[in-house]
C-alpha cells in the first residue's frame, strides 16, 4: 500500500463529498421555495396578526439560516450612533436623513430596500449559493482557543489553558476564554477520554428542534433526565443530571447559574436514560448485523454445499420471499408473530432501551433482508470457489470435503464479504426508516424524512454530510481490509482498476 495512493484516494473521497454537499445545497436552496421552512414553525403561526413582526421574523430567520443578509433601519442607526444614543429614536423614523442615506447606501450595494407597514425601512440581499457553501465549509471545523469567547459584558475574562480536575474527579485540560470549559477530560463513560478542542459545526436545527446544534440533536441522549446528587463548584448541592464535561460559556448567566458556577461556564447538557438517536440506531444495527452474519454466512455455505438439494431450495424460498414481499409487509408480519407467539413488546417504548426484550423484534426485523442478501452472496461465492482448480487439486492432495471447505474455500469466499463489513457497519448509523417507524424506535431512521418534510435544511445537509462521509470512509476501510485478507491485492495496484 503506497502512501501516495492513500493520499490521492482520500483526496478523491473528499472531492466526492464536496460534490455531494454542493448537489444537496443546490437541491435544497434553489428548488424548494424558502417560504416553506415556516410551514411547521409555531412561533411564525402566532405572528399571524402582526405583519411587521412577521416580516421581521421571516427575514431574521432567513438570515440566521444563511439565505440572505438582512438589515433594518434600526440596526443601521444603532451601528451609526451606538446602542443607547437618543438620536436613534428619530433617525429610524420614515423620511429621516438616515433613512435616505440607508436607502442610497444599500441600493448601491445591490440590496433590495423595502418598507414595513409602518414605513420604516429594511434591506436584504440574497447570498449566492457559492458563498453559502464557502461559509458552510469554512465554519465546518471549529477549533477552540482561549480567544474564542469575546463577551463585552465580561471584559475581565481570563484567558488560559491549564491542567486540573472535573468536579466528578476526572483529569481535565481546563480552558478559560474558550467556548468549552473542559477541553479534554476523562470520566467513566465510553470512550473514557473526551475532547472538545476540535468540533464539527453543522449548523443549528430549524424549525424542528429549534435552537439546538444539529449534532447535539442526534448525538445527545434522549428520554428522561437521570438525576443524582451533585455538588457544584460553589458548594451548592442539588439533584441534577448535569454532564460537567459539556460545560460551555454562557453569555448572560442568571442567578441560578451564579449559585452553581464560579464562572460564566454555565451551559451544559444533561444525562438522560435513553441512548441518543445515533446510539439507538447503531445498537440496533449492530445487533442486526451480527445476527445476519451469524445466520446468513453459515446458511449461504450450507446452501452451496447442498446445491440443488433441500437446504438450498428452502434457502431460495426465503430469499425469494424477501425479494418479492415489501419490507413493510414482512416487518408487520414478523412483529405479529413475535408478539403473538413470544409475548415480545410490539413497540420499543413499552420497556425502553434498558430492556433486552425491546431490541429483539426490531433487530431481527432489520436482519431479515440482510440475512437474505448474505445468504445469496455467500452461496454464490462458495459455489464459484468450489469449481476452481485449486479445490480440485486440494482434493487430489487427499484433503476431505470438510478440510477443503475450512482451509481453502471459506477463506477465499469470505474475502468479498469482509470487504463489505465496514459498509454494513456504516449503514447501521443511518438507521432503518420502516423498522424504526413500525416499532416506534427513537433512532435516526425518521430524521431524514422528517427533516425533509419539515424543511429542516441544516439538518438535511448535516445528515447527508455525515452519511456520505461515513460511507466513503467505509468503502476506503473496506479496501484496506481487502489488502489485509487478500495477499494478491495492494491498494496501489488496485488504483487503475477500481
Amino acid at each position, binding site marked *: 500500500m503506497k502512501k501516495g495512493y492513500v493520499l490521492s484516494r482520500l483526496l478523491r473521497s473528499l472531492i466526492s463529498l464536496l460534490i455531494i454537499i454542493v448537489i444537496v445545497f443546490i437541491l435544497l436552496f434553489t428548488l424548494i421555495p424558502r417560504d416553506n421552512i415556516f410551514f411547521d414553525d409555531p412561533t411564525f403561526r402566532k405572528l399571524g396578526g402582526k405583519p411587521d413582526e412577521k416580516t421581521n421574523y421571516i427575514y431574521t430567520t432567513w438570515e440566521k439560516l444563511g439565505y440572505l443578509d438582512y438589515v433594518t433601519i434600526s440596526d443601521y442607526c444603532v451601528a451609526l450612533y451606538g446602542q443607547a444614543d437618543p438620536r436613534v429614536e428619530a433617525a429610524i423614523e420614515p423620511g429621516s436623513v438616515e433613512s435616505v442615506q440607508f436607502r442610497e447606501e444599500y441600493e448601491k450595494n445591490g440590496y433590495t430596500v423595502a418598507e414595513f407597514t409602518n414605513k420604516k425601512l429594511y434591506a436584504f440581499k440574497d447570498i449566492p449559493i457559492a458563498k453559502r457553501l464557502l461559509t458552510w465549509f469554512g465554519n465546518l471545523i471549529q477549533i477552540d482557543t482561549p480567544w474564542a469567547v469575546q463577551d463585552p459584558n465580561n471584559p475581565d475574562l481570563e484567558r488560559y489553558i491549564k491542567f486540573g480536575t472535573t468536579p466528578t474527579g476526572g483529569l481535565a485540560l481546563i480552558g478559560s476564554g474558550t467556548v468549552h470549559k473542559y477541553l479534554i477530560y476523562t470520566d467513566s463513560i465510553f470512550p473514557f477520554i473526551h475532547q472538545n478542542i476540535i468540533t464539527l459545526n453543522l449548523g443549528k436545527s430549524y424549525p424542528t428542534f429549534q435552537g439546538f446544534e444539529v449534532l447535539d440533536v442526534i448525538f445527545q441522549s434522549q428520554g428522561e433526565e437521570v438525576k443524582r446528587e451533585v455538588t457544584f463548584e460553589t458548594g451548592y448541592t442539588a439533584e441534577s443530571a448535569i454532564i460537567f464535561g459539556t460545560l460551555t460559556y454562557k453569555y448572560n448567566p442568571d442567578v441560578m447559574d451564579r449559585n452553581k458556577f464560579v464562572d460564566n461556564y454555565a451551559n451544559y447538557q444533561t444525562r438522560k436514560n435513553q441512548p441518543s438517536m445515533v446510539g439507538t440506531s447503531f445498537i440496533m444495527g449492530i445487533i442486526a448485523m451480527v445476527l445476519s452474519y451469524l445466520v446468513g454466512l453459515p446458511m449461504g455455505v450450507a446452501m452451496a454445499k447442498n446445491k440443488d438439494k433441500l437446504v438450498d431450495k428452502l434457502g431460495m424460498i426465503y430469499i425469494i420471499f424477501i425479494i418479492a414481499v415489501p419490507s413493510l409487509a414482512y416487518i408487520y408480519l414478523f412483529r405479529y408473530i413475535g408478539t403473538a407467539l413470544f409475548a415480545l413488546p410490539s413497540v420499543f417504548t413499552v420497556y425502553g432501551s434498558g430492556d433486552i426484550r425491546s431490541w429483539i423484534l426490531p433487530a431481527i426485523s432489520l436482519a431479515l433482508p440482510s440475512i437474505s442478501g448474505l445468504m445469496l452472496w455467500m452461496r454464490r461465492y462458495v459455489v464459484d470457489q468450489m469449481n476452481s482448480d485449486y479445490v480440485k487439486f486440494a482434493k487430489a*492432495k*487427499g484433503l476431505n470435503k470438510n478440510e477443503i471447505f475450512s482451509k481453502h474455500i471459506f477463506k*477465499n469466499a469470505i474475502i468479498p464479504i469482509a470487504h463489505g463489513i465496514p459498509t454494513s457497519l456504516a449503514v447501521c448509523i443511518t438507521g432503518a426508516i420502516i423498522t424504526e417507524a413500525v416499532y416506534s424506535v427513537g433512532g435516526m431512521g425518521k430524521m431524514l424524512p422528517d427533516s425533509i418534510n419539515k424543511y429542516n435544511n441544516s439538518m438535511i445537509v448535516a445528515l447527508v454530510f455525515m452519511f456520505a462521509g461515513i460511507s466513503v470512509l467505509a468503502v476506503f476501510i473496506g479496501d484496506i481490509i481487502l489488502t489485509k485478507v487478500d495477499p*494478491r491485492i495492494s491498494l496501489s495496484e488496485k488504483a487503475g482498476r477500481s
Partner: protein
Amino acid sequence: MAEKNIILSAKDIEVKFRVRKNYLTAIRNVSLDLYEGETFAIVGESGSGKSVFTKTFTGMLESNGRVTNGSIMFHDVDLVQLKSDKDWEGIRGAKISTVFQDPMTSLNPIKTIGSQIVEVIEKHQKISKQEAKEQAISMMARVGIPNAADRFDEYPFQYSGGMRQRIVIAIALSCHPEILICDEPTTALDVTIQAQIIKLIKDLQKELGFTTIYITHDLGVVAKVADRVGVMYGGQIIEYGTVEEIFYDPKHPYTWALLSSLPQLGVKGEDLYYINGTPPSLFNRIIGDSFAPRNPHALKIDFAKEPPFFRVSDTHYAKTWLLDPRAPSLEKPEVIQDLHEKIEKMTGKGGAFYVDEQ
C-alpha cells in the same frame, strides 16, 4: 522394465456421465496393467477420455460421472468400490497423487506456498509441525526452488508459472506416492520450461522410484519420457506397446494418423498433415471402430463390428481389423514409414527421442 510387478490393474472400466437427461459414455471397457516403476504415457486428442480414465484411479470424477463397470485393483483394494472421502484416505494424495495441467490455478491464491505443502504432509503423516515444515522445505529444494526456506512464506502470485508447477510437483510427491499421475503437466508452460519440468519429473522418478502415468497429446513429450504408450481414441485404448513399438511399428490407422501429424515431420513448403473430421459424439452408441468415419483406410467391417485387440508382440497390442488375417495388407503411410531414420536425422542420436539421460 526388468521386473514386471503389476502395481495397478484396471479391468473393463466403463465411465458414464449424466448430462441433463442423457448419459454419455466417456470410457468404454478399457483395461490397463501398470508396471511398477515404469512411465506409461496415454496419448490422444482432446475428448478421447485420457483424463477421465486416470481420474478413476483417484476417485476424482466430476459429481455427475460414475464408473459403471469394471474394477481397478491397487494393493488388493478395488478402487472402484471406494466412495467417500474416508475410503480414499491414505490412497488419494498419499499413494496416488496427481499433477494437473495449469499451475496458475492449482494453488490456492491466498495461502502461502509453505502452508500448502505442509498441509498435505500433516494430512498423511503423523509428524510434528516443525518436522513437516522441514520436510516441506527439503521437498521445495528437491524440486529446484532456490532459497527454499526464504520462499516458504511467499504466496503463489510471487512465483513464476514454472516455479508453481515445481511446487505442485513437490506437493504431489511430498508423501512419496507410488503412482504419480501427470495430467498434461507442461501444456500450460513455455516450451523452455516444459523441458525443465519433464526432466525434473524423470529425475525425481529415478530418485524416488514411483510409477508415472503421463497424460499428454504431445507425442514429442511421449518420446522423451515414456517407457510404454497407450493411444486413446473415443473413450478406448486402441493401441498400446513400448514406446519404440508405437513409434516405429504402429498398427492402428489412428496411431498412423497421429504420428503423421507430428509437426516435426512436416516438409518445408507443404501443408502439415492433419486428421480429417471430428471425434465421435459420446452421446451415441458407437458401432464398429470409432475411428472408421475419419479413417481413409477403413474397411467395411470397421463400420459393423468393433475390432478386438490383436497381438503384435508380447508387449504390443492393437485394436484394428487390419491385423485380422482376412484383411487386405495395408502399408502405413509414407510419412512415417522411415520414422526411425527421420527421427535420427532430427535428433542426431541413435534413434532415441530420449532427452539427455546423463
